């Protein structure tokens, strides 16, 4: 039972990370029907920029909460800018060409960004400062570290903020209407290009937050760390019903949970396989996902 509870806590922590990344995929897919391969790289870049700002702030003698929140905000802003740049350069000119071209362009961008990170930051792991978030609550043998508490509460805050943004503000309304029909929303005066840029920026900012969380949780970041979590988060987005924001959150938590429990109870070596198996099974049996509407026949 204690083992189960511990795994549950770990699963929720990992699930928050996947949920945050999955949101970026699902929002971008919802609005321009593109699998943004570079999204995993936004996540990695967020982790890197986070550690860069964090170590700088620490060395300047800033208190812990300033380090954490400052690096978080700066990394989110950075990734938002990066995403806007990538969108303008690699995706916007291809808006009317075939889906294969855009997908390949995204793949190229992903390789480009990954290697850009490698060239500027080196091939080795970069360590996060560990002294900021040590300790935790212990209940018997179950351990809830401050880090996990921080990750889960920050995720909850970001998810609520995103929901407010998408469902209560004008920008959110513009995003939803552009996702439904680009031409029609352009006719009523919504700037589609700007809305798409904003969507990319928000998605990448969430991914950056996830990158910092992963960096803090595992203690280090690596230039190629974006690939596997990226695919898993995509699996989460598909599981929840691609294009559906609530679905992506639920899907993220399910994938995180499944991975942790599978690693704990079935096989640690094959833990990465389960996310792929879920992805394939969902696409095969219920392509619209848990929350999604029916998918049109151009995709499945």
């Amino acid at each position: 039972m204690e083992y189960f509870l511990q795994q549950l806590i770990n699963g929720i922590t990992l699930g928050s990370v996947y949920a945050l990344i999955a949101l970026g995929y699902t929002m971008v897919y919802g609005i321009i029907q593109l699998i943004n391969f570079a999204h995993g790289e936004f996540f990695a870049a967020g982790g890197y920029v986070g550690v860069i700002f964090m170590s700088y702030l620490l060395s300047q003698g800033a208190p812990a909460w300033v380090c954490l929140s400052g690096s978080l905000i700066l990394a989110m802003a950075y990734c938002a800018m990066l995403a806007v740049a990538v969108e303008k350069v690699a995706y916007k000119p291809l808006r009317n060409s075939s889906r294969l071209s855009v997908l390949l362009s995204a793949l190229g961008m992903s390789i480009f960004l990954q290697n850009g990170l490698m060239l500027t930051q080196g091939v080795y792991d970069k360590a996060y400062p560990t002294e900021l978030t040590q300790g935790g609550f212990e209940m018997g043998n179950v351990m809830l570290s401050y880090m996990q508490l921080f990750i889960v509460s920050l995720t909850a805050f970001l998810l609520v903020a995103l929901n407010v943004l998408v469902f209560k503000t004008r920008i959110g309304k513009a995003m939803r209407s552009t996702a439904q029909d680009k031409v029609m929303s352009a006719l009523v005066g919504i700037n589609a290009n700007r809305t798409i840029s904003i969507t990319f920026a928000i998605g990448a900012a969430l991914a950056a937050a996830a990158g910092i969380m992963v960096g803090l949780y595992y203690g280090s970041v690596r230039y190629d760390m974006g690939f596997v979590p990226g695919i898993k988060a995509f699996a989460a987005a598909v599981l929840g019903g691609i294009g559906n924001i609530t679905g992506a959150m639920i899907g993220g938590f399910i994938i995180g949970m499944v991975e942790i429990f599978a690693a704990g109870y079935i096989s640690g070596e094959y833990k990465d396989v389960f996310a792929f198996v879920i992805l394939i099974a969902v696409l095969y049996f219920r392509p619209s996902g848990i929350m999604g509407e029916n998918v049109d026949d151009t995709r499945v």
Partner: protein
Amino acid sequence: MTIPEFKKHWTSLGIGMVWLFILLWPLLGIKPEGLEVASTFNVWWRIALGCSFLLFLYQLNKAGAFKFISRPAGAVAGSMKSATSMVPMAVWFVIGIACTALIPQFAGRYAQDVAINCMIYVCLGLGLNIVVGLAGMLDLGYIAFYGIGAYTYALLSVQFQLSFWICLPISAGMAGLGAWLIGYCSMRMRGDYLAIVTLGFAEICRMVLNNWMSLTNGPNGVTGIKAPGLYWFDFTNGMTLEHIWLKKLSLIYYVILILVVFTIIAVYRLQHSRIGRAWEAIREDETAAEVMGVPTFYMKLLAYCSGACFGGMAGAFYAARMRFVSPESFTFLESAMVLSMVVLGGMGSIPGVILGALALIALPEIFREFELYRMLVFGGVMTLMMLFRPQGMLPSKRTMRSGKD
């Protein structure tokens, strides 16, 4: 080119460069020891200068400043094109093969190694070309079949001492079988969903290879694979023929050359058959093809399997040549590499894919001092290619009308 357009270009370039500086600075300039701008600026001004120069050239070209060069150059290119198209493709093919066959007699060992590598990738590219270029299905997990082929030969050779020539068709068959299993589950999907599912399958394959210790020896790989041979002698040793006129390594070189020739002929024949036309019909419009009576599901499955067979064949050769395989060689990056060969060269065009393989394997060998930047350039070129020339370097000619059936 009007003045407002001119201004607009330079303003957007300016904004872009400021943006780039902000993006570069945290990565290069912010360190725990302090902030500095010099190293970022050092990188940035080169990029900025290069981009400004390119924009300048582009505007000059738009304004017609290069007409005095481009017009005669275009005329020369046009007449050369018409001259080359007079010679049938088969003649070019034979000339190309003859030249390739002569390489080991003149080049050193290093050049031969590069050439062998190139030819392995030509096989892979042509196999993937069937799936992506002809049938129009985006496959991001093609390298899995290369891996299956390589491991099939490796294990059969190490465990049962079977010869390369027996294992070659078995490897191709195993890869085809694997593709059949995967394809049967995923051929209902289209476009990007298919892409992500094939990627998932390839990753599963790699993880199985990595973790199934008792069969594949896990991350340590399989060693002691036999090189291709004929009854009593190994091709690597070259036997005494070396003293007559053949150099040592070249026998294995000719094995892959034969495989490449076989692949080219097979793919060409497939492309110009009824099946090939069905694939192209599916690529152009799947629903219309279905309506016209093409059994799309089986045709797609067939494309997927036959593509995989060539991958498996190349894999068997790879294992025989390296005499060692490990899961490290079959990562997603390799898939992306083969895919970009097909895309850069021109989807659906055999000469295009060959050119793509040359460009991606041989060119980096020439610019070895920039080895670090290889993948960076490669990713950038992939995006730029999609922006400026999505049809590839040597696009395939669309068949307008041919055949009787």
